[in-house]
């Protein structure tokens, strides 16, 4: 099968279809354009801006640093795209999931070896996915409130069990090694992000499961009436998110070779920002993992610019929060404009 953007295009090629003049042209609407195509232009403009105006951006060490920081957030974001596309807003508990996974990878592998830590991390990730998914999918509870509570449960458990301490990996351990491998300026973790993006893109566009996730996000009732077990779809979306968060935890742990319960603070909104700015709609149904990857690049470059310009954490957070609100507003207004 040819590597193409989507099912839609593949079929277009299979049919040899040219665009039929019988279809009325949609009137151009700026908001619709911004919400659908804007991210590509914005990302390019931002990178150009950074290269030209920001001192120290276009240096090899800085680019490597951007990759390092983008990788874990990016992995969380592409995973969480499944939850957003299924019209369940977001999974706030990724903050707890990533930190828990990182602590497990360092803490448990120090005691019992890498393999054991993988097994435990996988178990915990499945648990997160299933608990969130069952509460949202079967009990029809609000995803924001459910994941807010699982965040507190998860972080509470993590701090309690870990005693709140920082875990250090051995200097010559496999995790440390993984964190140090680079191909040119590109760290291995960035490649992991790329591989996971491709896998999840494939899952979302080419598998039965991904298909039902998109359908469910577009219209829950119609999907149920097409005979889909919608509860399982929601559980699946949360499990994917949790598995991605687990990998992100590994990458994050490998980056610093340390782990602590607060290490993923802010991942929730950074991931959400990347997803929404990428053009995936919080109304569900519309969006793609590739868009999220673009959003991740945008958010990471923006953060890097702010850091290089000496702007503090607070302002970064404010800027990204404002971006979320702006992107969602554009989405809402574009939807309304498209309906007219």
């Amino acid at each position, binding site marked *: 099968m040819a590597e193409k953007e989507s099912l839609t295009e593949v079929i277009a090629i299979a049919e040899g279809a040219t665009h039929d003049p019988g279809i009325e042209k949609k009137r151009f609407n700026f908001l619709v354009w911004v919400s659908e195509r804007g991210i590509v232009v914005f990302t390019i403009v931002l990178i150009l801006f950074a290269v030209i105006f920001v001192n120290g951006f276009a240096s090899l060490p800085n680019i490597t640093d951007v990759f390092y920081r983008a990788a874990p957030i990016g992995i969380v974001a592409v995973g969480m795209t499944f939850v957003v596309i299924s019209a369940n*807003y*977001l999974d706030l508990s990724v903050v707890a999931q990533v930190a828990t996974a990182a602590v497990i990878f360092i803490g448990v592998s120090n005691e019992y070896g890498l393999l054991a830590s993988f097994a435990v991390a996988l178990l915990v990730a499945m648990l997160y996915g299933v608990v969130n998914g069952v*509460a949202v999918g*079967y*009990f*029809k*509870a*609000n995803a*924001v*409130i*459910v994941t*807010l*509570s*699982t*965040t*507190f*449960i998860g*972080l*509470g*458990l993590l*701090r*309690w069990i870990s005693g*709140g301490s920082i875990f250090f990996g051995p200097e010559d351990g496999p995790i440390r090694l993984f964190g140090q491998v680079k191909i040119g300026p590109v760290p291995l973790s960035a490649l992991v992000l790329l591989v996971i993006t491709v896998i999840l893109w494939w899952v979302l566009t080419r598998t039965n499961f991904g298909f039902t996730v998109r359908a469910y996000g577009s219209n829950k009732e119609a999907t149920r009436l097409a005979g889909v077990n919608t*509860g399982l779809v929601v559980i699946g979306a949360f499990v994917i998110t949790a598995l991605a968060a687990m990998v992100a935890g590994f990458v994050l742990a490998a980056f610093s070779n340390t782990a602590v319960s607060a290490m993923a603070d802010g991942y929730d*909104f950074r991931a*959400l920002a990347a997803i929404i700015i990428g053009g995936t709609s*919080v*109304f569900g149904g519309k969006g793609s993992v590739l868009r999220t990857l673009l959003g991740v690049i945008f958010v990471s470059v923006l953060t890097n610019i702010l850091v290089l310009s000496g702007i*503090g*954490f*607070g*302002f*970064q*957070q*404010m*800027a*990204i*929060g*404002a971006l*979320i*609100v702006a992107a*969602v*507003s554009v*989405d*809402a*207004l574009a939807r*309304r404009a498209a309906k007219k």
Partner: protein
Amino acid sequence: MTQTPAPATAQTQTMQLGTEAVGFVNKLRVSLARRTEGRGLALLTLVVLVTAFLEPSVFTSYQVTLGRVALIGLVALGLTAVILMGELDLSVASTLAVSGVVMASVPDIWLGILAALVTGLLIGALNAFFVVVVGVNSFIATLGMLFALRGLAFVLSDEKPVRLTDIDAGIAFGAPVLGPITPRVLLFILAFIALQIFLTRMRAGREFYAVGGNRQAAMDAGIPVRRRIFTGFMISGFVAALAGVINTLERTAADPTAGGTVLLASFAAAIIGGVVLNGGRGSVLGTLIGALSLGILQVGLTFSGVQVDIQDIFIGTILLLAVITDPTNLRAALAGVRASFRGREKAQAVV
């Protein structure tokens, strides 16, 4: 209970359709059945009984307990106004932090308090703007605001706690004013009374129930739905700012990271108290009951030497259980389970 003054046009024959409660016990039963606070009351009873048994000091040092209840409950009260309309305000925790920092940044204490409260109102209005005018789902709009405002609190405070200029005022604020009651508790009680009156006695407040319960009917009846939503978010913003002011006064400093647990606890209080997330059902009394249960539980756990992390686990679990045992959600889940069991029956050959 029919207060029929029988006007001249009244029909001689009347149709008795409603079942009218007769006798004190029946009337009591009917009144209870109309309430929405049952679940909250059950939890409160459980918590009170267990605490009285295991950690009675919670009640003897009620000053601490009341302070804790007020901390959780105040924000929850404002939140109740928004949830009743079927909307959500996740930005309350950040509003609390921002307004605290704003207050501490102003040298004059009274001016500072005023500035903080105005900040709360403005944030509420901004939230409502995104929800009502732009048409963004309130979960996501206020979530974005939660992040943005937390950032703002860091920016304004330079990422460290801001000391109050007038520290004496803060210390004075912590002292009891009415018997054992501290100003914090007093303000909480006042806020409760004000909201209770607003939501039960005033037209605008009662219409919140219509906006949340049947928005189309509210519009058809000529209720200014948009204005009501603005009012709701501004109440929520104002109350969160008030909580920020109180926190700052008591600690004599504003912490930009304040309010993390408050978000969880205040949602838990409102939802346990029977306020339904879809809107239209619930009461501030329920929220008070929810806040009481959580406050007593927290203090009880603290007195028993349970660390904060485990308290978070407790409250998180309670919120999770509360939101999945919401009657409508539970009914949906049970129907699903029943259906899937019925679906398992085996196909059989026709004899």
